């Protein structure tokens, strides 16, 4: 996901992330003068983000992000189907190619 904020004067800002709405355990995800940041690989669950000018306590309204993975039952069904389709496809091609080679030699 891409988080964007307004920073017309290109000041140094800090983007903080926390698992608590109170930001009692914040970690700085970005410090600099850009106006956006791509974040990836977040764990499942709720995450809070806020941005503010470095050295001040003027923080933006926190943004709540809920990360939910694809349902496990559907995942395993699709993974099983994927494995079957790929293996059958490869197997049929290899068998066909071997048969063609045999016929060509004969």
């Amino acid at each position, binding site marked *: 996901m*891409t988080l964007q904020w307004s920073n017309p004067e*290109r000041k140094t800002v800090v983007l903080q992330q926390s698992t608590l709405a109170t930001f009692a355990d914040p*970690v700085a*995800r*970005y410090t*600099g003068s*850009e*106006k*956006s*940041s*791509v974040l*990836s*690989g*977040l*764990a*499942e669950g709720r995450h809070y983000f806020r941005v503010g000018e470095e050295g001040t306590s003027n923080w933006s309204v926190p943004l709540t992000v809920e*990360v939910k*993975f*694809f349902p*496990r039952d*559907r*995942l395993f069904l*699709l*993974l099983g*189907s*994927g*494995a*079957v*389709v*790929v293996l*059958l*496809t*490869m197997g*049929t*091609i*290899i*068998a*066909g*190619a071997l*048969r*063609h*080679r045999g016929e*060509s030699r004969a």
Partner: protein
Amino acid sequence: MTGEVYAISRGTGWVIVILLGILWVALGIYWGRRAKNSEGFMLAGRNVGLSLGSATAMATWVTSNTTMLAPVFALTLGVWGMLAYSTASFGLLLFALFVPRIRTLLPAGVTAGDFFRLRYGRCGWSLFLIITMLYSLSWLVSMAIAGGDLLEALAGIPYLQGMSLILIVCILYTLFGGLYAVIGTDFIQSLIILVGIVFIGGLVIVKLDFSTAYEHIATYQPSLLQIAMPAALLAVFNNMLFGFGEVFHNNVWWSRAFAMRKEIAPKAFFLSGLLWFPIPIAAGFIALAAGPLGINIPDENQTGPVVASAVMSMSGLGAIAGVLILIVLFCSMASSIDSLLAATSDLLIEDVQKGLFGVEIDENRFRRSAGFVIIGVGVLVWILAAPHWPIINALFISGPLVGSLIWPVIAGLFWKKINRTLVLGGIIAGSALGVWAYFALGWFTASLIGAGVSMVATILARFISPKQFRGAEAPAQIH
């Protein structure tokens, strides 16, 4: 990289692209002199050797998507994402097994359309033409857009000017040299792409402390290391099948299968697949290093250039970073745009002009006619790329459409009888359900659903009222 700060000046950007353009056009004219007739222009005289053959297949498959999207896959899907992108090489490896059968079945074949006409009649051939034109055009337009975006992001060249320039260069050398020019320039471009990616990857390895990097990713991006990340796992199968569908049906690869010498073609495709496999891994690895190296990525679509530029600056190569990135990415785009221009134009001449409308073109008028078609395709691409629509989405949505052609190609090549109606019904059902899955379940399921549905229909078609295929025939007999 953002706002008014560019990696290279606008003047430098223009100079690089114009110099590369002059080089490709000059080489296109030089190699194009060997094309004495239509077969020379479209199939390089059916005499392409191993090194040129494997280089052209590899370079064509290294598209702007490989260099720009593989890093996004790694950044968003982690290690599985890198591997998922690399599985597209399996399409080339398996196509190597098709080639001997293709050359036996169609000894005088010219396009992939010849195969579909032979095996599935006019109806199947029309369905193939609709799908392949949608796919090829969206691929071409997405690369023209990526070229314009790249020149704007790296050098501040306005989008429309950059996109037009890249397109004009590719049209010119394809126009003058046909497949001879495309294959020759692909060879040089593939070397530049390989050297560039290995060089930037090497710099990242030098800069990165692997244990710190692992710790950083495990703390801030834990899902990227998770073995059971659903979207990433599904992306492996989905991307692999998308790649199969792209390679198995498209005339870019069939024209190369016809152009290479019969005995070396399988080896060339196999080698190109092996050479291609590590490229997305290297490009993706660069993106995974972003977090640990403290590089901010402001725009997901610019992940590769941003990280490469930052790493080169850290290594004291800031001044040439933009130049090197522009050259590598320009080569990756040109090597695919030219191939697609040539292959799509061949398809329009052979299948639409001659096959559909019955217009025969004699040898004296062929080059002129081919020129008009190449320019026509180029103009159409320019018109579609100019508004900067998100055409890349159309390319991804075409995944289930090309995925649904996988099994009909396999059956047409290796089986002796089939129920054509059932196969064609499977292509339509697979395409429709795959597009539905794209929107309802997620992009990472679309090609899988499309290929799966078509596979079931094709297997059933082997046993329910199958009819014998016709034997190997020359293209003239197929029309």
